[in-house]
């Protein structure tokens, strides 16, 4: 098969991160030192090789990009200090930008000033839009959903989710097609017959349940090579808390809307803290705040190899998550205050605008890994090489 060589690949990749793979002399230390490398996924050297020689299609079809959790052991021990771990992170950013046909992700990554401006403006537009439609501010209790009608939030939220869903789907399809072709996976491999379906279901469970939600290899393998840190500062735990928190809040929001649709509880009805949906939201919010705060702290302190270099994209995501969590938390406090504080309404406006922006931008920023990683892990769990042989 002919291999297309793109000489601009390496310089282009270098724009997505600070690494020096030109220094790499292909010794293979990174691959062998990696706790995640096995027969079905060898990296980073092979992926670095793709970059060095310009094999763009092969690089973008590598599920290995997403099986790496950047423990930094390869960068730590690289004899050339070529930063293979940072390379993998940059390649993931490049992949997110490449799978996105709108080129918005590319702008977000490569032009941080414009990217930040877009983010700020987007939040402002959401806020303005809702402000224009705002209702009265009740002075006795915080009647948030009278201030901004819940119908408005719901329909805006639905619209955003449809846009995001389409963008995400387009990215997944682009990526899955590339990986499937390079791995030799066809429709038949995934859906053809009972055995294939069973295998696919199992792979899906491993990808989504065990690895994504359970963080098995991140937890077991990647931590094994790290300098021991206090349990509450372990990378996998902070990541898991952030992820579970995010999913919990997302779930609580959807469920709350669902209760309204079912006619059980209208949005905005005061409920006690133990009310399941509210409890879920509160616990998830606490997890998100703790997780993101510690992750920000790790980055500020450059606490480990994987956070020694931070891109604006890393900060944008953490900041958006943190602001969403914190504003929600402040809101929760405001609800308990005896006199309804007027600032509560503005915090609410801010909270809704930021949360909407976070969701809308998801496919175009670092958060996109929530869809790309499970796709890669699915192909990894499918292991066509071993099942065929």
């Amino acid at each position, binding site marked *: 098969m002919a291999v297309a060589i793109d000489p601009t690949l390496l310089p282009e990749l270098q724009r997505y991160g600070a690494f020096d793979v030109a220094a790499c*002399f292909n010794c*293979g230390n990174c*691959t062998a030192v990696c706790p995640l490398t096995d*027969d079905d996924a*060898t990296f980073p050297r092979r992926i670095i090789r793709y970059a060095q020689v310009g094999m763009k299609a092969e690089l973008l079809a590598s599920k290995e990009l997403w099986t790496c959790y950047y423990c930094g052991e390869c960068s730590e021990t690289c*004899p050339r*200090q070529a930063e293979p771990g940072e390379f993998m992170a940059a390649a993931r950013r490049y992949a997110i930008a490449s799978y996105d046909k709108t080129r918005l992700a590319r702008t977000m990554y490569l032009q941080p000033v414009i990217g930040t401006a877009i983010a700020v403006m987007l939040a402002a537009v959401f806020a303005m839009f809702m402000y224009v439609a705002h209702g009265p501010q009740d002075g006795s209790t915080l009647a948030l959903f009278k201030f901004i009608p819940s119908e408005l939030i719901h329909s805006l939220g639905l619209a955003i989710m449809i846009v995001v869903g389409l963008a995400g789907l387009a990215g997944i399809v682009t990526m899955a097609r590339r990986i499937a072709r390079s791995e030799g996976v066809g429709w038949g491999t995934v859906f053809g017959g009972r055995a294939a379906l069973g295998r696919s279901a199992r792979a899906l469970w491993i990808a989504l349940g065990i690895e994504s939600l359970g963080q098995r290899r991140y937890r077991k393998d990647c931590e094994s090579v790290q300098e021991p840190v206090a349990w509450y500062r372990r990378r996998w735990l902070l990541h898991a808390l952030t992820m579970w928190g995010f999913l919990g809040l997302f779930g609580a929001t959807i469920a709350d809307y669902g209760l309204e649709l079912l006619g059980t509880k209208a949005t905005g009805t005061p409920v006690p803290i133990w009310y399941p949906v509210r409890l879920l939201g509160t616990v998830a919010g606490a997890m998100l705040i703790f997780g993101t705060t510690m992750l920000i702290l790790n980055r500020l302190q450059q606490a480990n190899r994987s956070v020694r270099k931070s891109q604006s994209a890393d900060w944008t995501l953490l900041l958006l998550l943190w602001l969403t969590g914190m504003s929600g938390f402040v809101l929760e406090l405001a609800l308990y205050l005896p006199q309804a504080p007027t600032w509560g309404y503005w915090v609410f406006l801010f909270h809704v605008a930021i949360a909407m922006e976070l969701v809308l931008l998801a496919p175009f920023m670092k958060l996109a890994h929530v869809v790309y990683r499970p796709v890669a892990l699915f192909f990894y769990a499918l292991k066509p090489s071993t099942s065929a042989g």
Partner: protein
Amino acid sequence: MIEQRIDIDALVVGAGIAGLQSALDLADRGYSVLLVEREASIGGKMIALSKVFPTMDCASCITTPRMSSAAHHDNITTWTYTDVDSITPDGAAFTAKLTRKARYVDEDLCIGCRLCEYACPVELPHEFEGNMGARRAAYIPFGTAIPQKALIDIDGCVYCGKCEKACPTDAIDFGQKPVSVTVHARSVVIATGFETTPLDAKKEYQGGVAANVISALDMERLLSPNGPYGRVLRPSDGKIPDNVAYVQCAGSRDETLGVPYCSRVCCMYAIKQTMLLSGSLPLADITVYYMDIRAFGKGYEQFYQTARSMGINFVKAKVARIEEEPNGDLKLRVEIIEEDGRVSEMAHDLVVLSVGLKPGDDPRRFIGVDLDQYGFVASPEPKLDATLTSMPGVAAAGTAIGPKDIVDSIMEASAAATKVATYLGPPPNSPQPADDGVQIDIREIEAGDALAVAGHSEVLRG
């Protein structure tokens, strides 16, 4: 402290093979040389080697003649166990402050009979044998040491006095003090040599933790006919190894160790050792994990090809991690680059780390010459005049300048001697050249002088 003071033409710092060669070349031309060595014997690292590549000469057999030539040369004064504290320019010459460390044995009285050693009850790890054997606290450094004079390791000594009673010449002197000496030298040769990168430099390799991960210098001793065990056994349990691994670039070409340069000798010494191992362990499997094989010298590539044809297994891979099994065996994690790039865990029962070379001393401690960023002596003319230093009248030779093999060290030492001789001008009391152009006639050398010219007499005969 007693003060002494002497004047000489050339002060050679370090009595390894480079220092010995510079000293001999200068002395043969009629210059007076003071050869100082911090260890208790001259001979440096080379005397500890088993055989040398690519000729497979026995290292002791070719080093000892040089050592004894220098030790017995009329124009060379050899001081072992002596530290150089400072060398400062003093007009056109240099003032050197030296400290002759206390051996606790009177060198003039000691006859090297070793009765003190036999009497001493203390056993300590033997540094010369890579700490694999034991020595006494009162000891002669090693079998072929020059001078054959005892010394007492006062830190390990229990002051039992048995050596004092055993000594037939009353040479033991516990009251001995270090002696400061001021030397006026007209020139200096820096030949401070190398040290190997530490065995535990790369923590992933378990060096210094796992008993069966040894350095290549340790293997030299295991392979030596007069080594610690007399044959190749692995340190943890004395088992005869049957699956030996060499880890190349274990101390070189690695930015994480601050040694980005190639140490130049590791490929060749590893190849040499694998050949010797095939001789002493004919049934053993031997694997060399390498990034690149650098066999650049005369006859070196052929040497490498010979090793390949002997069945030594060369695997292109950088070893990333070594893990110790409960039975002392080792697992090496590597990427098999030349096949499908899979990661493999290779099992071995003895692992030799091909450690790299770094400066043996910091010359800036005692002299103001410029060094390069890695601490080797820097020449202002690295291409045209490698033995030059930033100070007039000071030359350098051998691995003090940078990693190199024995062949190159000796050639460089001779070059340094030539540069110093040119700098010094004709030696004092130099014989006028005879009309026929022959300076020295071999037939005129007295029998007693024969030893003095052994090892370099072939130059005269030729």
